[in-house]
């Protein structure tokens, strides 16, 4: 059997794009498309989205445009048994929204305490970088909430997922993706 024939044998991965709701109907989009189309958020509030996007972009350049916030938000809205988040495989207890809300809250709180009441998204690029560098090493005094190094690990992983883990991400990096069953929407 040729490789192509083998791949062709396996079809029907109809569920592999994420379902977002637009004007009351469900559409399948990649998180990047959802971000570009300003798809409303389901689970996170505007402040949490802002923090998540700023943090994602600091961790992995390109994460904001790649739809980090839409990815996480959509994933938090599905039953936990269907979730694709790294949180799932790192023993985080569902509902995963609890972890994200606590984590984003902890980041903002620590940022405000350290930076004259400025939330993480209000920091300059350099300030954000310095904050994350301390957070990953658990070096921020008075930290409250999920441990900083664990937040770093998980949100870095989510950001890596949307930037480097997609077919688009592989193409941008210039390495072959070679799927047996390709996720839909190059996602």
């Amino acid at each position: 059997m040729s490789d192509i024939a083998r791949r062709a044998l396996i079809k029907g991965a109809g569920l592999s794009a994420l379902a977002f709701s637009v004007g009351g109907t469900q559409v399948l989009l990649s998180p990047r498309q959802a971000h570009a189309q300003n798809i409303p958020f389901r689970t996170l509030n505007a402040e949490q989205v802002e923090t998540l996007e700023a943090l994602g972009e600091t961790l992995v350049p390109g994460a904001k445009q790649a739809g980090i916030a839409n990815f996480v938000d959509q994933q938090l809205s599905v039953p936990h048994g269907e979730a694709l988040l790294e949180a799932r495989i790192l023993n985080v207890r569902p509902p995963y929204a609890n972890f994200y809300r606590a984590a984003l809250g902890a980041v903002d709180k620590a940022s405000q305490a350290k930076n004259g009441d400025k939330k993480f998204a209000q920091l300059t690029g350099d300030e954000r970088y310095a904050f994350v560098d301390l957070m990953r090493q658990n070096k921020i005094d008075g930290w409250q909430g999920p441990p900083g190094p664990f937040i770093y690990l998980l949100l870095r992983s989510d950001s890596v997922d949307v930037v480097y883990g997609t077919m688009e991400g592989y193409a941008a990096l210039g390495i072959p993706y070679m799927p047996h069953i390709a996720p839909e929407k190059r996602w």
Partner: protein
Amino acid sequence: MATLEKVDVVIVGAGASGSLYASVLAKAGKKVVLIEAGPDWQMTDLISSDMWGRRVKPSGVPFLFEGKNPYGYAYQGGWGVGGAALHYFANFPRYLPTDFKVKSEHGKGLDWPINYADIAPFYDKVAAEIGVSGDAKSEEIWRPKGQAYPMPPMKTFRNGQVWLKGLEANGIRMVPAAVGMNSVDFKGRPACIYDGWCHVGCPIGALANPTITYLADARKAGAEVRALSTVTRILTDASGTKATGVEYYDAKKEKQVQEASVVILASWAAQNPRLLLNSATDKHPKGLANSSGLLGKYMMAHYASGTWAMFDEDVENHMGTVGAQFMSYERYDKNAKKAKGAFGSTYIVAGTALKTSDLGGFANARIDLFGPKLAEFMQRAKRGITRLTAFGEEMPNIENRIEQASEKDEFGMPLARFTHSFSDEAIALWNANFDEGIEIAKATGAKEFWSARGPMPTIHLFGGTIMGEAAGTSVTNSYGQTHDIANLWVAGPGLFPTEGASNPTYTIFAVSQRGAENLVSKWGSVAG
């Protein structure tokens, strides 16, 4: 609640060991029902993506993790038909004779009640049944002779080959890795095409996951799988001498009772004791099969010392399988690193395909990097990076254990507290293996190399229902039959009194094959 018509065998969990038991028993003419907590995955569900691949793993596991090295359950576990072996890496090294006799040979740990020779014929049988690729002859520098594997070794790539010089310089001989994958077409399943998606499930069937081997055979022979159904208790008769079936919640979350002549627990090393503890009665107040007091005790995990190396050349790291290309038992002597305060075997593998994301992805090769530095690293690593891995063994420790907690799950079943800490000797071996990895990398000529250090990982899982000679010192006999209740059996790595350093599943299959054949042979005296 309905009580369903009695069957010959009910098996809890349709993963690696449950599927094998189902196949042997159904082929022997027994009416078999497998009750499986997760979905009935189809090959078309196995999407090639690290994100989509997480769907086939457990979510929200019913354990509370404690100890200095809390167990990484959700990554290591399975959920749905095939169990963790739906998405395992299919490295198939055997255990060596020394693994069965650690206590006799070293005065620590435990002995198995059987020897390598008792298991050896079953290794050969499993290989012939599901397909193993490798070069048995070359392994025989370390182990007794056996049959040749049914398939030649897999292809190798630069990401594996580049390590050989450094390994040789350190006196470490490497041989083709034995893997449960097809180097050539095998029994109607195609040869591997080396695209490295094994860890999210191989939908073409080049990798021997149980759904296309043992479970498919079992179904053909009439076994029934009830998916999305979670067992909560094993039921026993009033005298407490016989298991009568199991209680479970079906896909509609309705409570059912499945009666059976024989009950087999194959829900992995942590769930099996959790279920037995939750099945306590006045006749078995400490839980079923716990007259020894050892139920849930001696939980063990492997750990790995990884070494990353970056080369100027393109090491084709997108090519290969996620299993190993080369393997070695050269450091398997349990005292090999004694001078560094370590004890335990080391099993070394080289060569693997790499993806970008997820725990094993190369974005995690430098977990300290983020922002522009990570972006720059990804550019360099995409062609040049490769990893060497040394797995280490920990000794059984009675303090590493599963116990009932007070909090309950959605079915009202108590969660279990899972306590796990590595010993000083294991930590010393982990460190010594990092040191040796660096020596090896130095001798490869790589331009950069570093240890893949982070929190000490917990890999694979063993113990909790250990096998042994006597009822006072173990939970089951060498076949997996519990000492206390003749028609209640346990399957899987929970039976192992010590864990060796080799990946477990080839041995899980061999031990299960031996147990299942034994059950068939003495059916009349066992079945209740």
